[in-house]
């Protein structure tokens, strides 16, 4: 393991922001630390960077304890949510900063700055002032700056959160390609599941300072450890079912779940798990909202004899459905998770 975090706690007075967290990141791997705001994920990232004193446990790199290594000798690159570019230096000066700190020769500096600007798609921006950059450009420069001294670990603190939606999506894809292509060992902190799954090989879900679940992206997405994690990962409806031969049967009909063990299972349904179809379980539309790629419905299903009798469902954007309309729903395996 390149980075291993063992039983790390961070305490502010009597408040324990991070509680005995264990994490490992392998060489070249991208790990996303996913959690709601206030879950302690940024604090953990800052503790790993050496910016926050650790009150218990240890942070190790290739087995060496980093407790005595100050921030500037850890060789961990850090990108803040809002860039934090140096206002008194231009783009070149920002990117070359780490190179100067590491006494890289001048001509080598110029070469590296050019190469990094190419890498983040800002060729020719070297002479720009920081104030002339858009939010997305500033974030790219911040990334190039962090990558310049060839850090052994890259720490990204909500790197895309300050950008608007379309830009965020584009930049997430670019960033994922860049990290994979260059095999950069990365820890990215985010509250956005989509961002986490785009960028990371593995995710760790943090809640109230504790890791609730860690694992490969598909396994966490398909099998959240408990209801809280499931809810954070977009599950809106929980449903008990009986699985047999890879098919789970419930009040809402059958659905393929190849990974489920036979017996009682708990299904977690994301809104896309229920689609309007010509036949299936009968229900009545309660309300609807237009989304970009589908129509989001709340449907009352009499067949559900639990405490909640409404579920989230989706229909094609073209479907002309209004409150009171009768619909039929079928389960879509893509939106279904096995909880626990």
């Amino acid at each position, binding site marked *: 393991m390149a980075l291993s975090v063992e039983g790390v706690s961070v305490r502010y007075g009597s408040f324990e922001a991070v509680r005995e967290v264990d994490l490992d990141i392998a060489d070249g791997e991208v790990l996303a630390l996913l959690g709601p705001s206030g879950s302690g994920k940024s604090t953990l990232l800052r503790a790993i960077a*050496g910016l926050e*004193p650790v*009150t218990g446990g240890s942070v190790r790199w290739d087995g060496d304890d980093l407790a*005595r290594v100050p*921030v500037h000798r850890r060789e*961990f690159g*850090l990108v*803040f949510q809002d860039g934090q570019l140096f206002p008194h230096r231009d783009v070149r000066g920002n990117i070359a900063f780490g190179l100067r700190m590491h006494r890289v020769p001048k001509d080598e500096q110029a070469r590296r700055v050019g190469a990094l600007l190419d890498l983040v798609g800002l060729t020719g921006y070297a002479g720009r002032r920081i104030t002339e950059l858009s939010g997305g450009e500033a974030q790219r420069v911040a990334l190039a700056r*962090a990558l310049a001294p060839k850090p052994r670990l890259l720490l990204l603190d909500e790197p895309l959160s300050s950008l608007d939606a379309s830009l965020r999506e584009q930049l997430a894809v670019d960033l994922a390609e860049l990290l994979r292509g260059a095999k950069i060992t990365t820890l990215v902190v985010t509250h956005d599941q989509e961002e986490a799954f785009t960028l990371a090989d593995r995710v760790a879900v943090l809640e109230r300072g504790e890791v609730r679940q860690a694992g490969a992206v598909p396994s966490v997405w398909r099998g959240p450890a408990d209801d809280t994690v499931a809810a954070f990962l977009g599950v809106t409806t929980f449903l008990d079912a009986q699985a047999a031969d890879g098919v789970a049967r419930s009040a809402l009909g059958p659905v393929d779940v190849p990974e489920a063990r036979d017996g009682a299972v708990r299904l977690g349904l994301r809104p896309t798990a229920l689609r309007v179809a010509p036949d299936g379980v009968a229900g009545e539309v309660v309300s609807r909202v237009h989304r970009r790629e589908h129509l989001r419905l709340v449907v009352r299903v009499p067949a559900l004899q639990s405490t909640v009798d409404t579920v989230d469902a989706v229909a094609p954007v073209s479907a002309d459905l209004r409150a009171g309309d009768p619909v039929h729903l079928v389960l879509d395996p893509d939106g279904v998770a096995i909880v626990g």
Partner: protein
Amino acid sequence: MALAHRVLTRRGTGLALLAVLPIGFLAVLFAWPVAAIVGRGFSGGGVATALAGGETWRLAAFTVAQAAASTLLAVLAGLPVAFLLARVRLPGVALVRTLVLIPFVLPTVVVGLAFRALWPDGGVVPIVLANAFFNVAVVARTVAGLWTHLDSRAEAAARALGASRSRAFREVTLPALAPAIGSAAAVVFLFCATSFGVVLILGGARFRTLETEIYLRTVDLLDLSGAAALSLVQLAAVVAALVAGAVARRRRETALRLRARAETARRPEGREWWVVAAGLGVVALTLTPIVALLVKSVSTPDGWSLDGYRALSGHGSSGTLAVSGWDAAIRSLRTATDATLLAMVIGVLASVLLVSLRRSPGRLARGAGEVMDAALMLPLGVSAVTVGFGYLVTLDALPGDLRTSPLLVPLAQALVIIPLVIRMVLPVLRSVDERLRQAASTLGASPARVWREIDVPLTVRAVVAAAGFGYVVALGEFGATSFLARPTSPTLPVAISSLISRPGELNNQLAYAACALLMLVTVAVVAAIDRLGTGTVGEF
């Protein structure tokens, strides 16, 4: 834990080393002399007598009353000017920024003289007007500093909710500005309560404040215990004002989300023009005494003449001065240079110390920082005469007799400028985003390198501006200098004061000409500072 402890200890050692110079300077050159004078007063047994006497309380009441009236006037006059500087985008606003600062850095003697040119007999009205005139700039620039960066969208929101323009100002903008107004008012009150030159020249024997009375008792009556008692009363008032100011400052520095100026300034519209007119009116009024003084410097009973300026190369009529006017001017420049260098070293070190204390994790360190922040302001509020006299009774205990050293006057002046330097440098230093420094750390910059690469470049303009500002204040310093400067080596303000206290047409002409000279240097330095484009974040 053990490691964290060790890191903290090492940090603590660094801070302690940093603290040695400013604290040592303050202890030796401020606390000790003041304590010595106060102690002398107590041992003389006159303190109780003085405190019981009605005269003391009459003086205190007059001091507080004139300071309060002056502060009120300065705030009222300063607010429209602040609006003009902060929110108005019109040609010439930059010029107003410079002009408005001129009165504040004028030597008190010059201000006193300028008002005497308009009110030859002196009195309460010119005292209050002169004190306010002196401090309009403090209010205007402190408040404008905050107003410029205040998010105007809150006001827009209030307007959208149905508030009229004036209602939105009263209910949204004014409360947001309150910390800056409070902080400025506290500083102005301090300046007015301890104002020396102005009261001495305009008050004559009739109107005396604690400050001039301390001078009188110390120098003329040799009544040390009386002076000590008055110093105590003054100190108490000053500490109260400082505490109020510190509270206001703390709110101001933490509570607000600030914007860049470009986003908030625009062309005035509708009734805002009235405010703009009021602001311009105030600026014009503050320039009147200056113009009057300039006119006086070239007019004689026989018509226009440059006699006063020619006389600068002489010693005044019947040898009033021991040196020529030019010699005094050169002495002034030299002394102010030494004082500024001293004050910059101490003031910048103290600012670094204060900001480091605030950044440290320990509550104790932060508490110590706040106490020190307030303590470093004390020299602003203690009678310069007390300090000056304290020097004479304490400094002979030090090796190498400082009392006859040419460094004595610069040291006293430095003491006056250090608080100003700190107030200009500290807010800028504090506004450096901690995450910028952390970003530099993660890129491989050691703590010392972070200072060099981040804090220094971001603060350097404020530091240079503070140096320029300190320089002009030192140039005009009168209270302590008049007490400590030897007759054979007066500074220009001291020379001016001796010139006007002696009769003679030539002396008056020469005094006015010397004032004009002093003003010229001041204006040049202030214009240069404003060229730097700072002053938006600092407090004056």
